[in-house]
């Protein structure tokens, strides 16, 4: 009896264990990651993975080109009024959702109202509150007075106040066009059964195992996409992904294991296959400006002089550049001449003595529990020990970590990063430094009335040059106040197979697949129509 049971179990498991390495025929781009895609609902996703796939399934009015400039996607052209409060978009007429229906202006309105709708629980709602009528959107469903449909292919937005970032906000997946009838039909499950107008269509999603996209043959850009589809395996660790890549089973590896990276960078064979981009991200140590001893600016500055940032970079195989301030140097409008804080433990010691801590002090550094962050934390701990600051490291999981950092009196120091949502310095400086964002993203509880005033003035300045000038002043002031220890800006490295062509990384958004193609052995592009026959 036991044998029969065992036998049955074996057969069942045999059947269940579909080999995950079977890629469908045709030029499919093969990816693999450890974690599954959280969601494919553009109103819900707020992480790089969800955004990468939402960008492939949906379209927005405008989008970034390969160099980070805004260009029209669903919109062919747009007009901005002189007072910068009215935006009128003219839509393409040849866009269809993958259920066959043509995309019209009303879909844009529906999608934005859906994002603002509290029932959707979208984290993108805050970005569209500047549209007139948004404050009435407290209950489902809402009609925004500020969105007008002039004709089936023209939509007009009216804002309550000037917003230099409004176009960028329309490039976020939160503003992606979704078909109302499909959203209503699927309800909560729309995240698993997305229907959009993008270059790809979801063809299969086995949760925890694989996600597969297929090309949309009716996409409005001719000749795009140049792939038959994309396959993404789940549950594959970084090490395993690298080995699969080396064995030719994967096309792209996004997180190259540190152990391999040092070798790769020196091996000529791999160099042409590496792609890298400096991200618009800053890694930092936040110090709670309301907890002793970090209430004293000199102590915070001392921390900046005490940490050896070049050493930190070596720990991450030099995949980064030292940060001299808040805003990454490749951000449009960034200040190229930031002073930063060089490594100078002697100066740090002097500052600490001046502040009344000649023998240092004890404190706790909260970090996310992961091997890489713990390694960085230990290096920082060593550096601070050299100026007699005894740091205890507290590793904690991501969820509880964010909760704790938001509680005002709990966390004295924490290791975190901030990534830009828009290519504009205010996305760093205002959100992280204005006192009105304490309790939200201003985790250091930094409050400087002078800085607040400058930020408020910048928010209302229409002239770009003047606005950027104000922001530069803000940054210099805040660097002096040093609520952060400025660590580094990560450089993202990915590696591709030789057959992968036109794969480019983007500083602000995840890599897109619509222009990528896979070369045959002789270097030519295989015909996509024949893929089914293979």
């Amino acid at each position, binding site marked *: 009896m036991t044998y029969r049971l*065992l036998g049955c*179990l074996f057969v*069942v*498991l*045999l059947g*269940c*264990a579909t*080999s*995950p390495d079977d890629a469908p025929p045709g030029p499919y781009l093969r990816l693999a990651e450890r974690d599954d895609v959280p969601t494919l609902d553009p109103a819900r996703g707020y992480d790089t993975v969800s955004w990468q796939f939402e960008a492939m399934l949906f379209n927005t009015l405008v989008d970034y080109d390969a160099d980070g400039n805004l260009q029209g996607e669903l919109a062919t052209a747009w007009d901005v009024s002189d007072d910068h409060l009215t935006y009128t978009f003219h839509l393409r007429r040849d866009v269809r959702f993958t259920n066959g229906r043509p995309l019209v202006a009303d879909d844009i309105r529906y999608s934005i109202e859906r994002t603002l709708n509290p029932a959707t629980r979208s984290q993108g709602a805050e970005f569209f509150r500047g549209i007139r009528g948004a404050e009435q959107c407290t209950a489902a469903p809402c009609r925004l007075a500020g969105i007008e449909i002039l004709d089936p292919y023209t939509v007009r937005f009216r804002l309550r106040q000037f917003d230099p970032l409004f176009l960028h906000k329309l490039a976020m997946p939160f503003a992606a066009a979704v078909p109302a009838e499909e959203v209503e039909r699927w309800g909560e499950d729309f995240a698993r059964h997305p229907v959009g107008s993008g270059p790809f269509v979801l063809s299969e999603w086995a949760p*925890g195992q694989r996600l597969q996209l297929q090309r949309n043959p009716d996409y409005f850009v001719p000749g795009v996409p140049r792939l038959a589809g994309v396959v993404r395996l789940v*549950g*594959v*660790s970084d*090490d*395993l992904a690298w*080995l699969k890549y080396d064995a030719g089973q994967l096309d792209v590896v996004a997180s190259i294991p540190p152990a391999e990276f040092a070798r790769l960078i020196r091996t000529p064979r791999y160099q042409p296959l590496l792609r890298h981009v400096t991200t618009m991200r800053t890694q930092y140590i936040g110090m709670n400006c309301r907890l002793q001893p970090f209430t004293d600016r000199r102590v915070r500055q001392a921390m900046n002089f005490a940490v050896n940032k070049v050493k930190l970079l070596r720990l991450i195989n030099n995949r980064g550049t030292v940060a001299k301030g808040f805003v990454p140097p490749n951000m449009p409008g960034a200040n190229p001449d930031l002073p930063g804080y060089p490594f100078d433990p002697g100066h740090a010691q002097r500052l600490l003595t001046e502040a009344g801590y000649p023998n240092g002090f004890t404190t706790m550094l909260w970090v996310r*529990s992961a091997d890489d962050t713990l390694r960085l934390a230990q290096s920082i701990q060593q550096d601070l020990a050299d100026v007699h600051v005894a740091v205890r490291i507290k590793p904690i*999981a*991501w*969820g*509880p970590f964010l*909760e704790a950092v938001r509680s005002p009196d709990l966390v004295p120091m924490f290791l975190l990063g901030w990534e830009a949502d828009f290519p504009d310095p205010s996305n760093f400086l205002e959100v992280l430094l204005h006192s009105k964002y304490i309790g939200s993203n201003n985790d250091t509880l930094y409050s400087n009335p002078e800085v607040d005033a400058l930020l408020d003035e910048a928010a209302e300045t229409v002239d770009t040059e003047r606005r950027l000038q104000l922001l530069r002043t803000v940054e210099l002031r805040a660097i002096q106040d040093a609520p952060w220890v400025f660590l580094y800006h990560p450089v993202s490295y990915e590696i591709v197979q030789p057959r992968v062509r036109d794969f480019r990384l983007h500083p602000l958004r995840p890599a897109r697949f619509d222009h990528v193609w896979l070369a045959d052995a002789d270097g030519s592009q295989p015909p996509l129509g024949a893929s089914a026959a293979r």
Partner: protein
Amino acid sequence: MIAFAQRLVWTLIILLGVTWLTFVIAFVVPADPARTVAGPKADRETLATIRKDLGLDQPVPLQYVRYLQRLVHGDLGRSYLTRQSVLQAILERLPATAYLALVSLLASAVIGAAVGCITASRHGSAVDLGILVGSLVVLSLPVFWVGMILLYVFAYRLRLFPLGGFGVVNVVLPACALGLNGAAYYARLVHTNMRTVLDQDYVRTAHAKGLTPLRVYGKHALRNALIPLVTLLGLDFAGLMSGVVLTETVFNWPGLGRLAVEAVFNQDIPMIMGTVLFSAVLVVGANIAVDLLYLAIDPRIRSQGR
């Protein structure tokens, strides 16, 4: 039969004890049990609702009764992260762990029997001491370290097996790592039993009569070697579960052990307590099953406190 009925009653009492201990750890000891159930992000209204639902303002014995009621209905709570029912998450991962555990028991039996038989054919107390020391050394190996070495040598260097993850072939390396402990115990058992058997008169007579070693071994010795197999199965199911936790982490095997470790990592208290309770129930179940097997195979065996 009476002894069996007695055993059954004791088992039920132990099961109750297990639920009581889990209840105490989860609800009596923490400072704010409602928060441990709801998670760090819950707001005040959710906490109040949970307090009422769980009856946390009532005396402890009443709380325990309500806890038992929930258990009987299969309600082990919901995970903080995924909002999925804990019981459902456990049942989803159970087949993978069961598969790994079964194959590892098989590995233990095969490796242990092989080693035990081979060494039994040699005489001498030096060999016996060697088996003892050898099995002690094997039992001293940390299972996660063995797993990592197996991965490095057989999966990475020799490319004979896949590098972790779930699959039919992928089970070989983790099963070997997990089964090594059992193999060491089993090898000693088989060795002792075989030696005893081989020293007996009828075997010597068979030898003298000229029967080939194969027949001698095959018929008599092997049958006697199988009886302790039952002992092996029930020997240390709890230990097997502990080993599973580490093995699944090293090999990225999607089973109960990994579920528990991820829950601990995310401080997902309902999931942690759910897996702990579930595995304890499995252990109790396995023990009573082994007792049944014993009685079925040889009613004369009465083990006293194993």
